[in-house]
C-alpha cells in the first residue's frame, strides 16, 4: 500500500513513547504498534481523532502517500 504512517516521526519529535501515546488515546499497545509498523489495513476516524488530539497534529502529518516506496516494497516481495 502506498499510504505510509509517520507515527514514529511524530512520536520522536514530541519525545513521546508508544506506551505513553497508548495511555493517552486509550488504545492497546498492540493496535498502535500495528499502525506504527504500517501493517494496519484501515484506520477509524475515531482513532485518527484521538491520535491527532494527543499529538497535536493534523491527519496529514500522520499519513503520507508514497507510491515509490510502495512499488519498492511490492518488488522486494
Amino acid at each position, binding site marked *: 500500500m502506498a499510504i505510509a504512517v509517520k507515527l514514529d516521526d511524530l512520536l520522536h519529535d514530541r519525545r513521546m513513547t508508544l506506551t505513553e501515546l497508548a495511555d493517552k488515546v486509550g488504545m492497546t499497545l498492540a493496535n*498502535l504498534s*500495528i*499502525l506504527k509498523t504500517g501493517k*494496519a*489495513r*484501515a*484506520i*477509524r476516524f475515531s482513532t485518527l481523532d484521538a491520535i491527532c488530539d494527543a499529538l497535536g497534529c493534523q491527519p496529514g502529518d500522520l499519513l503520507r502517500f508514497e507510491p515509490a516506496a510502495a512499488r519498492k516494497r511490492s518488488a522486494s516481495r
Partner: protein
Amino acid sequence: MSRSAPSSAVLPIARLALRVLIVVNWLGGAAIAVLLIGMPASQWIRSALKIPSSAEAGGLIIGLHAIAALGLVAIPLNYLVLKRLLEIVETVRASDPFVAANADRLQAIAWALLALQILSVVIGAIAKAIATPAYPIHVDAGFSVTGWLAVLLTFLLARVFAEGALMRDDLEGTV
C-alpha cells in the same frame, strides 16, 4: 476481543451425526463393493432376485451392475461432503468459522454435490431404462429440484463465506 455465541446442542449433535454418517457411508460403500464383486456370478444374482435367464434379464444384470458401480463412485463424494462439513463444524466450535478455508471447503462441497446430482440423474435414467413391468426397479435417484437447489445454495454460501472472510480480515486490520 473475541466473543462467542451461547453454546447450543446443535454442534455436538451435528458432530456426532456427521461422524456416524461417515461410518455408515463407508459401510454402504463396502456393501456395494461386495455386491459388485458378487455380480459377475450373475447366477447368484438371478436366483436372489428370481430373474429367469433370458436376453432381457442380461440387460437387467448389466444395468444393475452399472448402478452399483455408480453408487460406488458416490461413496468418496459423500465422504468429501461429510468430512468438509465436519471440518466446518470444528471451526464453529473454535468460534472461528469466517475463514477463507471454510469458503474453500464449501466450494469443494458444492462441486461434490453437483457431481452427486449428476450421478443421481444418470442412475435414475439407467433404472428407468432397465425396469420392466415384470421387474420394476425402484431407486431413490433421478432429477431432484431440491437437490439442484442445494447445489446452487452451497455455491452461493461459498461466495458469501469468501466475502465474509475478506471482510473479517479487513476488520481485524482496522485500528
